[in-house]
Each structure stands twice: as C-alpha cells, then as structure tokens.
C-alpha cells in the first residue's frame, strides 16, 4: 500500500513537473514532500526556497484579435457570424457617433453647449460589446460609451437634448452634458464620480441572478484610470465572491486625462488583476470590433451561468479627454496620428465590410453626409426647445417633496415674482 502510494506520488509529481514545463508560468519550485498547506486562507503547497513574485513572474496576458490592421480575418474559425444588417448597422453607428462627436465638440467650442467628451478610438469597444449583448441586459457606463446607446436605439436627438438640458431631456437638465441614461433602454444614468457604478453594477447583477429564470446579465464599463479607485477593487471582489452575472468591461485607452497608464499601475494592466480576484478574464484588442464581439459573446455566456467576467479592451484615446482638456500638453501628435489612422477601429471595420462587399466609398460619402445632417438637425431642434420649468430644480430629490423643500419652492416663487427681470425666465418653460 505504502509502495503504491509512493508510486502515485512520484507519478503525480512527474505530472506536475511536466505541467510546469508546458505552462508559461514561472513559479518557485514546490518542495518535494511538503504537500498542500491547511491554512484556511489559501490552498497552496509549501516551498523551501525563498522567492518573491513580481510583475514579471507571469507572462503578460495576450491580446485576443480576430482581424489584422487591414480588416482581414486572421483565423477564419474565429470570425463571428454576425448578420449583414447588424454589421452594417454597427458600422453606421460608428460613423454616426464620429459625426456627432465632431459637431458637438465644435459646438462646445462655440459655446453652444457647456461641455462635451468624444469617443474617438473606442468605437470598436462600444459596437462590439453592444452587439454581443441582449437589449435587456443592464448597462452601467462611465461616460465614454455613447456607441452602446446608439446601438440600443437611442436617437441622436435624444442625446443632443441631454447635452442641451432642454425640456425633452429625461434627466430634466440637471446633469452636465454626456451624462445620458434611459430606463427604457436599460441604460443606467451616468454620474461623474468615477468607478462608483462598479459595485452598483455588481449589486444589480445579484438582483438579476435572484429573479426567476433569469436570462439577463449586467455589463459595466469603466476606464483603466477608474480601475484604480477603491470601488473597482470592491466590485471585482464582490462580483467574484457573490457569483454575479456581470461583465466588467475595462476600456484601457492608455490615459486618464493626462496620466499615462504607466503612472496608473505597475502590473500587467487591468486584466492581470482578474484571476487574482477569481474572475474569468480576457484581454482583447479594442480596435478590433469583431474580437470585442467574440469576447463579449463568450463572456455573456459565462456571466449567465453566474461566472463574473473581466474583459480588458485595449485601445487608444484618440481625442482629448474632454472639451476642458488639450491633450497635446502631455502627448505627441505623432503618437495620436498612429492610432487615429493605422489602428482605427472604424477604419478596420470598414475594410472588413468592404472585403465582404457590404460597403463602398460611395455609400460611405452618402452616409457620412446623412449622419452629419442628422446631428445638425437634432441640434437645431434642441436649441429651439425651452429649458425645463425652474421648479424641476426642486423635484425628484425625494419621492415626495418634504415640507421644507415645499417651503423653499414657495420662497423662490415669491422671489421670482418680485425680481423676475434678473433671471433668464424666458428660456425656461413657464408652467
């Protein structure tokens, strides 16, 4: 018996040795006869050699790709099977998004809206992920995910109304531009504090999990900068320990305003943190819409079996951080150009579509013009609309307005009766 046990041990050990040889991991040699420890905090073998691990102890997590820079599929087995209509729609939404960004950015420069943030360079992440989800999946976004909203069918007019804060804005003009949200489209309203949406998304996923016959998951978008917040740590850990149906979707675009990612973290990006929390993890080329689509499709399957997934989509923030930022103050124009031209997700998807015979230069010109007109028309309409009634300022703080707030409303009402000429009342709805 002892002999057999000994034999099994040798066999197991040689197997372990072989696995180690095959694996890309470099780990300290496990001591021969130490066995597995019984500490409750970790299931691990003993070693009797001192060795610290660092960011170089593991190979970098590779970046999953389907297409090359010329929109050619690298391995045909990996090509996703997306309907022609959907593919064209994804591309059209990219163009629409680009046109909207261009015009609204300019309109902020002209002082017509107070603030704006563009989405340049990250369109592939939006379209690839949005197309892989069910429209009933709940979206928690950071702010640079407008493509997802377009994919869900939110119109340019609705987005523009929010930026103007006019009476058609479902948010009633209370938040800064680009803080979109739509209950009807299952997109939770965006807020400025970074990463706060992460643990919230996990909680929402837990609520979905508990619903009978759940077929919905949650996707939560965030940047690599936001991933440094404590809330990101909380979310990763809660998602894993509470087995939540969630896709944690990191847009790693290399910058958090002016801070390059090398000053944001020292490890292997955000993806490397996933396995440490017990999350299923993948790193994907965010400029490759098809790769994002494939990754999120598979991630969604895992999520629906209550296995939370972390997806790190690598990209480059081609535009300025926001209209309040001039990014040439901290990075070179050459660097931007490389990503804007050679690795553009829009360009790659266009080449892919052209390769399939779904798209050509003529349609492109025509659609760009159409997309531009849509935005210009939406802006003209939005500008004509009145802002919400000033009383909306005091509504929705609580479900019912408390007496103190009612009193403050009356106070303001009386004040406006006397001093109305000092306020821009004509811009606002009047009853």
């Amino acid at each position, binding site marked *: 018996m002892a002999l057999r046990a000994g034999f099994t041990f040798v066999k197991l050990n040689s197997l372990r040795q072989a696995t180690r040889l095959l694996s890309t991991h470099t780990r300290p040699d496990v001591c021969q006869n130490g066995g597995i420890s019984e500490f409750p905090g970790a299931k691990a073998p003993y070693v009797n050699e001192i060795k610290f691990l660092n960011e170089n102890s593991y190979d970098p997590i590779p970046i999953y790709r389907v297409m090359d820079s010329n929109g050619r599929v690298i391995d045909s087995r990996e090509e996703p099977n997306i309907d022609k209509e959907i593919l064209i729609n994804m591309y059209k939404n990219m163009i629409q998004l680009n046109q909207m960004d261009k015009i609204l950015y300019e309109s902020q420069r002209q002082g017509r809206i107070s603030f704006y943030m563009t989405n340049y360079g990250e369109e592939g992440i939006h379209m690839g992920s949005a197309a892989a989800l069910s429209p009933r999946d709940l979206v928690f976004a950071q702010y640079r995910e407008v493509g997802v909203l377009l994919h869900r069918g939110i119109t340019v007019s609705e987005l523009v109304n929010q930026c103007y804060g006019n009476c058609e804005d479902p948010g009633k003009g209370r938040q800064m531009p680009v803080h979109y949200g739509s209950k009807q489209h299952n997109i939770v309203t965006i807020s400025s504090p970074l990463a706060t949406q992460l643990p919230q998304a996990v909680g929402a996923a837990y609520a979905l999990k508990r619903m009978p016959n759940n077929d919905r998951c949650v996707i939560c978008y965030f940047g690599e900068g936001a991933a440094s917040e*404590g809330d990101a740590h909380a979310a990763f850990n809660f998602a894993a320990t509470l087995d939540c149906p969630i896709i944690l979707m990191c847009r790693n675009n290399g910058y958090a305003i002016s801070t390059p990612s090398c000053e944001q973290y020292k490890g292997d990006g955000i993806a490397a943190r996933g396995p440490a929390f017990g999350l299923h993890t993948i790193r994907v080329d965010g400029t490759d819409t098809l790769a994002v689509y494939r990754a999120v499709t598979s991630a969604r399957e895992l999520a629906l079996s209550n296995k939370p997934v972390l997806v790190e989509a690598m990209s480059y923030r081609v535009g300025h951080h926001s209209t309040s930022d001039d990014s040439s103050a901290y990075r070179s124009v050459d660097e931007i150009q490389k990503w804007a031209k050679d690795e553009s997700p829009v360009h790659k998807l266009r080449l892919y579509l052209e390769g399939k015979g779904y798209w050509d230069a003529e349609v492109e010109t025509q659609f760009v013009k159409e997309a531009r007109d849509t935005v210009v028309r939406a802006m003209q309409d939005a500008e004509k609309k009145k802002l919400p009634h000033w009383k909306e300022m005091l509504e929705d703080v609580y479900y019912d307005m408390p007496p103190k707030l009612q009193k403050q409303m009356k106070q303001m009402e009386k004040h406006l009766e006397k001093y109305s000429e000092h306020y821009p009342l004509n811009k606002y709805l009047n009853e």
Partner: protein
Amino acid sequence: MASLLTQKSLVIGKLTKYVNDCAKRLSSHFIYYPDNEKPISGETTKMNMMQAINNAMDITLRDDPTAVLFGEDVGFGGVFRCALGLQDKYGKDRVFNTPLCEQGIAGFGIGLATAGATAIAEIQFADYIFPAFDQLVNEAAKARYRSGGQFDCGALTVRAPCGAVGHGGLYHSQSPEAYFAHTPGLRVVVPRGPIAAKGLLLACIRERDPCIFLEPKILYRSATEEVPVDDYTLPLGKAQVLREGTSATLVSWGTQVHVLLEVAQLAEDQLGVTVDVIDLQSILPWDEETVCNSVKKTGRCLISHEAPLTCGFGAELAATVQEECFLHLEAPVCRVSGWDTPFPHVFEPFYLPDRWRCYEQLVKLLNY
C-alpha cells in the same frame, strides 16, 4: 504566613476596588424609559432593541421575496446578533456575508435597489460608514434627481450601530448623523428603543428614498419593551412628544432622549417645572412643525446630542428655531453635546452630555 495572608487580602481588596471602579466607569450614563404606548393593538412580546430589529427584518424577508440582507458577518447573525437566525430561515442567497469593504457594501446595495430588489445593508459600526460616504452622498442620495426620476435606489436601507457604548473609544462610539443631514436625497433616522426601532426600520425599508438607519448600540440589549408582534410602521419625518410641559422644550434623538427624560424628571422634582421632551426620530427630513410649535408654547429650547457641537445637527435645529420662533423665545437656544474632540476612551464620562450637564444648562436656560 500571616503577612502573606494580609498581602493576599490586600491584593484581593485592590482587585475588588479595581473591578468596582471599572463597573462604575462602564456603568450606563442613562436610565432607560420604556415606551408605554403601543402603536398598534394586538399581541405583544418582550423584546430588546436587537430583537425588535431582527423582527422587522424577519417580517421584511417573509413578505418581500426580493429583499436581501447583507454586510460584514451578517451570515452568522451579525456581531450584535441583529440578523440572528435569519440566514437559516431565508437561505444564504438572501442573508449573506460580503467582503470587508464598506464602499462595496453601499455600492452593492444601491445596485440591488436600482435593479428592483429591497436591499438592507449593514455597516458594522457607524464609525466605519465613511468609506461608503461617496456612495451614499454622491450616488444613493442623487440617483433619482440626476436621472429625472428614471432610476432610484429608494429600496435601499443602510443600518449602522451608532453612539456611545461606555468604552467604544474613537471608532466604536461615533454619531455621524450630521454628516448625512447635509445631503438632500437621504433620509436619516435614529430610534430610541425597541418599539420605535421596529416601526421606523420597517418604514425605512419600505420608504421610496434611500435611508440611513442609525441604531444606538447601547440600547440593543439594555432597552426592553413589550413590542407588537404584528407588522406596523411609524411615520418618517415625524417627531414624537414624549413628555409635555410648559417651561422649556428639550429635543434629542436616540439614547440621549432618555437622558433628557431623566433631566425632565429632575427638573420637576427639584425645580417644580415641567418641560416638553421631543424625540426627533428623523434627522432628515426633520419635523420642524412639532419642534417649533413646542418652542412657541414654552419659549425655551434645549437641544442635546452625543455628537460634537460644531456643525452638529443641533446647530440646524437651533438656527431654525431662532428663525421660526424669534418672538416667542425667552432665552437663547441652548445646545448640550459632545465636546469638539474625537470620542475619547477613558474620558467618556466627561465627554458625554450626561444628565448633570443637561440639567445645569436647563437651570441656566430657565433662569435666563
């Protein structure tokens, strides 16, 4: 041998004195005044505040299938036993431990509520609610407002044990209500005993606004009442007049209500004066009407709370009272509170606004 015996008895004597001193030091700074009136008729059971809270959560989990209860160490019943037996009764997916992370607990709760579940989150001590401050102030409080009413987390209730406990030192004694009182969109509630705790907690859980429910931890076991077994709620935003009088209005919440009830009795016995004692119950939004009506009647107002003086919630009450009752006031509004220091360990008896400090101020107020 004899000297050894003497030495021994000396040691024992010293020890006894030490133990007695400790007991004196740890002795409660208040007498508990149980509620005599029942909010509803029907069967009652003797419960302490911990059991009343447990009962409220039991009713919620029983009647609302979406309701979940979570936090640090909630699974085995919680460090104060408020969740005792609930995991066994309702399952691990409804009553569960979270990782040790307050911002995560608050954020997770907001998400649950956003997606339509009833979320009862526990922060182990109110002293540790500050890591969740951002989630509560920037997110929970503003969710409905910023989305134009499209989304909200009204189904979120955050429970946290608060207040002095005799020996809690800096981080097991705080009363953070004033920090949250400055946040439109939140409801902040503090009960004074088991009957109030059950009714107010059930109201918080069902209220369509996010609520912070601060439970004076010293009352968990020391406060016992005949609590109605059936479901009932007490109105939020409403104060309760516990004792009526003519000479002054005393306002507080939580444990301090009992200190003021004793001071009121002292005043009657020693000075022959009667006073109104008001339990504010809801810190935000608070019941201006009840407090101001009382002050208009009595002409004098004393506010007391355990939290530090500067910018404590007493300041808001005092400012409102002087604004609304200016012509009725016979003396400046008086505040008796914790000092403007962190909450100390061995100095707790000198830190707290106990019966004698409150009594002294009341005498001054009456003689002004």
